[in-house]
């Protein structure tokens, strides 16, 4: 299916976009990450969490919705 992936903070510096459509046919968040690291090797060095349908999810969660967000921690204040 076509996922709609949003990138936040410093992740956009790796992906060079804030949002994209990404064709994905496997099952879990971990599979999706593997596919994304393949497209953006530098992403693997970053710290972030994944949200599906506006809910933060673990790596073994099955991807069943199209709305995905990648969220890094921010240090600044």
């Amino acid at each position, binding site marked *: 299916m076509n996922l709609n992936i*949003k990138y*936040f*903070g*410093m992740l956009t510096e790796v992906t060079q976009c*804030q949002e994209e459509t990404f064709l994905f046919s496997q099952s879990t968040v971990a599979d999706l990450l593997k596919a994304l690291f393949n497209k953006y090797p530098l992403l693997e*060095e*970053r*710290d972030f*969490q994944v*949200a599906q349908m*506006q*809910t*933060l999810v673990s790596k073994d969660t099955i991807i069943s919705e199209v709305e995905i*967000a990648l*969220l*890094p*921690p*921010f*240090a*600044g*204040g």
Partner: protein
Amino acid sequence: MSRYSRHIILSEIGQKGQDKITQAKVLVVGAGGLGCPILQYLAAAGIGTLGIVDFDIVEESNLQRQILFGMSTLGKNKALAAKERLEDLNPTITITAYPERLTAKNAVSLFNEYDIIVDGTDNFTTRYLINDASLITNKPLVYGAIYKFEGQVSVFNYQSGPSYRCIFPTPPKAGSVANCSEVGVLGVLPGIVGSMQANEVLKLVLGLGNVLSGKLLCYNALTAETLTLTVNKSELEINKVLDQKDTFQDRQSAFNCDISFNEISVEKALQKKNVQFIDVRETHELPKVDIINPVQIPLSKLEHHLEKIDAEKEKIIFCQSGIRSKKAVALLQKNQINNCYSLKEGAQAIIEHYNQN
């Protein structure tokens, strides 16, 4: 009475609500970009007991966003300067300044004296410390953080809700996430995010609306979009922290995950006694700064010359601009060499300092 009349005429607040605000005790850690608007609105609202923790001093580059300060407070401690400004804004409240670093040693006893903790810091070391100490003392934590044009806001540890570690279980790798001083920040952004944090504090105090617990609000100043994500509680992560309760005070030395934590300005560096200056530039690089008598070990060779580093002294490491010196600090920390500081703006700052003085 007239000071709070615009609160009191709101039927949702009234005199009863204003009394709750007067009785509230709020501790704000960090009086910087986020801390300034948080403190300004909480003091103006009449939070009866306000604590401010900040060890840092006001610098000119802070004035672009840290709205409690001005030319007259340059060089002053931020907690003390903020207290002075806020006492003028509202002399009817009690403000305590703690001009010191928050550490694992002082955090628990300090947090115990307040009802609500607010995180306005700029580094992960302190953010994780604040989260864990809030959990241990069972205090709600109003969290905010920023990066360039984006911000995050949440309320943690509220009525057994999720904590920061339920989103990000462990601190990022050292140096992998930059802070404002390294990458820049839109000045108004901490104003927006800090005001949202002050709003969450008032909601907690007044029992109004829906507190941002179990939610992480993400704000983008360039698109004016917000995305609110649901955060689930991780008992595992929370119990890991609570299990350390008895040994919490002893843990801090193994806890430095931010290089920015170990940055130092030229003024502070030159005030220190019993220090070793280490120049990690290549030997051909200019200008030389013989005036401070540095040991020269290029970064590329540092790991092979650790014996030249004086274990007894504090180490100030500098390069041309302050970037390689950060890498050097990380490398030394990796080799269990502590008490190392990276000099902000490098050799240039030393030369400028001596030219001005």
